């Protein structure tokens, strides 16, 4: 590790000590929606003032950190138990990656600075009849003059209730083969005809939403990339975005998640016995630490290869699949180790990570990784077909 990087780490460490809000877990436990949104926006603004909000963006737009620096930043944030950026997530990752790769100059100038000022984004991709078969989506966008008129229903749009804008996939050519009739839009969530309804998830939170779109008008300037090339735009940007998000999550798993798991194993039970004194428990911890090390290397490779344009077609799927299932196995282990006491943690603090240390909730919440964003089964199919070149399922379209 170079001296420059160590200086950077010292700087980040000092910043974390001064700025990570004390007692945020307590104040965010059971926090209502308004308090959650206020807290998320304040934390984002704090990170932005320090230059830590969008380290992965290009320098000209306010980022420009090297991959090595980003890793250090995420390590220190995790080690200081910093809150996660939940609300800004889609904006700084998915929206930004899409705009940078396929947006017009005007779209970038309109939205990238706004995201830094706190503009919140949601993603309207899935539909009731288009889950794993996303390209089967039915929401339509009909061209009328210099506008599109959108009708349909979106599902699993995380944070849509608080979103100012939405990334939207809609069908513009119903007669084309399904992957060639979809367009990619930027939708202003204040437009009339939009109704958002929260869906309560398995751990009782309601950040997922349904979006009902009834004659919603999007100006043609809201189209990203060519008409009917929306599927290709989404495919091209999602892989790049995946690496960036995983870099942070892998460092969280390594620095916060694993640390808390070891702590959980050191907690004596009612009879004073500590799980960590059992060699089988230590063996499992060592397995996890080894796998986390592997995950971190893969994430770093993915980001660097994306930057260099050398990432292979299924690299992002390998990382997503591996992270999801490792998270699930680790939280499962935490839940088992935690015993009945782990079942008394009834509410997870808002703004916490996927491994909050409330292991049973974390375990149940881990399906939010193995299902959305392409289920583990879909990722395996992508790895098999695009990564390894195995033949497609006959009849699958």
């Amino acid at each position, binding site marked *: 590790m170079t001296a420059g990087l160590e200086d950077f780490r010292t700087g980040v460490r000092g910043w974390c000590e001064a700025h990570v809000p004390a007692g945020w877990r307590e104040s965010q436990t059971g926090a209502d929606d308004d308090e959650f949104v206020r807290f998320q926006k304040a934390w984002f603004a704090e990170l932005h003032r320090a230059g830590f909000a969008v380290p992965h963006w290009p320098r000209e737009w306010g980022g420009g950190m090297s991959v090595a620096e980003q890793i250090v930043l995420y390590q220190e944030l995790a080690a200081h138990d910093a809150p996660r950026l939940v609300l800004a997530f889609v904006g700084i990752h998915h929206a930004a990656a899409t705009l940078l790769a396929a947006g017009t100059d005007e779209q970038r100038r309109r939205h990238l600075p706004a995201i830094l000022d706190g503009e919140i984004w949601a993603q309207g991709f899935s539909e009731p009849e288009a889950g794993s078969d996303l390209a089967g989506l039915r929401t339509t966008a009909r061209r009328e003059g210099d506008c599109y008129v959108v009708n349909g229903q979106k599902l699993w749009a995380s944070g849509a209730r608080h979103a100012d804008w939405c990334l939207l996939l809609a069908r513009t050519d119903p007669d084309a083969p399904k992957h060639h009739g979809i367009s990619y839009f930027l939708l202003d969530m204040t437009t009339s005809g939009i109704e958002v309804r929260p869906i309560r998830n398995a751990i009782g939170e309601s950040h997922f939403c349904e979006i009902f779109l009834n004659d919603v008008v999007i100006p043609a300037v809201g189209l990203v990339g060519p008409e009917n090339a929306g599927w290709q735009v989404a495919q091209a940007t999602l892989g790049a975005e995946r690496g960036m998000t995983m870099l942070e999550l892998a460092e969280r798993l390594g620095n916060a998640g694993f640390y808390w798991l*070891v*702590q959980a*194993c*050191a907690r004596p039970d009612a009879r004073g016995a500590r799980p*960590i004194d059992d*060699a089988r428990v*230590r*063996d499992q*911890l*060592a*397995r996890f*630490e*080894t*796998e986390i*090390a*592997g*995950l971190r*290397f*893969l994430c770093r*490779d993915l980001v660097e290869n994306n930057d260099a344009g050398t990432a292979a077609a*299924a690299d992002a799927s*390998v990382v997503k*699949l*591996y992270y999801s299932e490792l998270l699930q196995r680790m939280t499962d282990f935490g839940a088992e180790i935690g015993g009945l006491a782990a079942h008394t943690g009834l509410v997870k603090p808002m703004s916490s990570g996927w491994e909050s240390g409330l292991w049973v909730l974390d375990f149940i919440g881990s399906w939010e990784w193995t299902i959305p964003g392409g289920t583990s*089964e879909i*990722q*395996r*199919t992508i*790895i*098999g*077909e695009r*990564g*390894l*070149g*195995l*033949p*497609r*399922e*006959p009849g699958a379209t």
Partner: protein
Amino acid sequence: MAGRYADIHDELRSVAGDLLTKDRPARSEVAWPLLAQTGWIGLEAPESLGGAGATFEEVAIVLSEMGRAAARTSYLGGAVLGVGTLMSLQPGESRDALLQGVVSGAVRAAVALSGDHESAVVDVPFRVERTGGALHVHGRSSFVPDAADAGRLLLLADEPGGTPVVVGVAARAPRLSVTAQPVLDETRRLAAVAADGVPVEDSSMWRFDGDPRQRLRGLLDRACVAVACDSLGLGDAMLAATVSYAGLRRQFGRPIGSFQAVKHACADMAVQVSVARRLVRAAAAAVADGRPDATRAAAMAKSYACTAAVEVVGKAMQLHGGIGYTWESGIHVYLKRAALNRSLLGSPAAHRAQLALGYLARVDT
């Protein structure tokens, strides 16, 4: 610094792959003189002694290719451990001459690294005693890689004062026995070495360059990563073979690879190989640089890659169906070698137990 020769890695990989597989009867011995000609034996040795002045990272690439081919060679004992051991000693006339001899291919060496070659921690299997003015070495070591073919055995021994040293003895020395130990994996040759008062010349007892315990640990780390590289190659080869077979073999009127049950199993194999590759690469770099975290990196690479290889090769046998279980298919060769690698130089559980020592220390302070 690791990565110094990264630009030649692809070429080295491709040359090694070709040499180990093309125009060779499957799994025939890669003759020692041929290995000497390739320059792989002395990759890490200084150019002044006939070596290439490269690093363990390049050795790691050759090792992975040998795994990929399930090659029958004495590279592990003769080069990786032989040269590695000699390079960890204080330079001097007799050491330099032996190193030069090994690098040129003239001398075949093997190293008795531990008592059983099954432990994840350092144990010094031999001891040197001084009786009168003469030195004699005693002790025994089992499963020594490539010892049966060696002309010169390097024994890790405690000298009379208790400091670990390396003793060189001729394979035919009196009161030394080297007994081949057949194992199921026919691509590796292991032997038991017993010394019952073998005379040692003063000029054939060498001191480590630097802290002997650290050097011993470094040798064990190197050996573990070498085996992990081999397992990585085994797994990668069987993944490729399985993907290829699943694309060709048809049942129910379609290639079996189009069935999700097969495709997803291949995807899982690919993920395991990817993780193993990254852990192995990181460990090889740590060993090449002699970094303090090399022992942890080696334990991770050894435990993960050797476990993964058995699973991946086992899945390869399964997905090849009946043909995969035949002697002719050769998959059994990979499975036996993967299983041997898993046990050699410390089981995955033994390495994880070493990793876990840190957790107890962390929570007990």
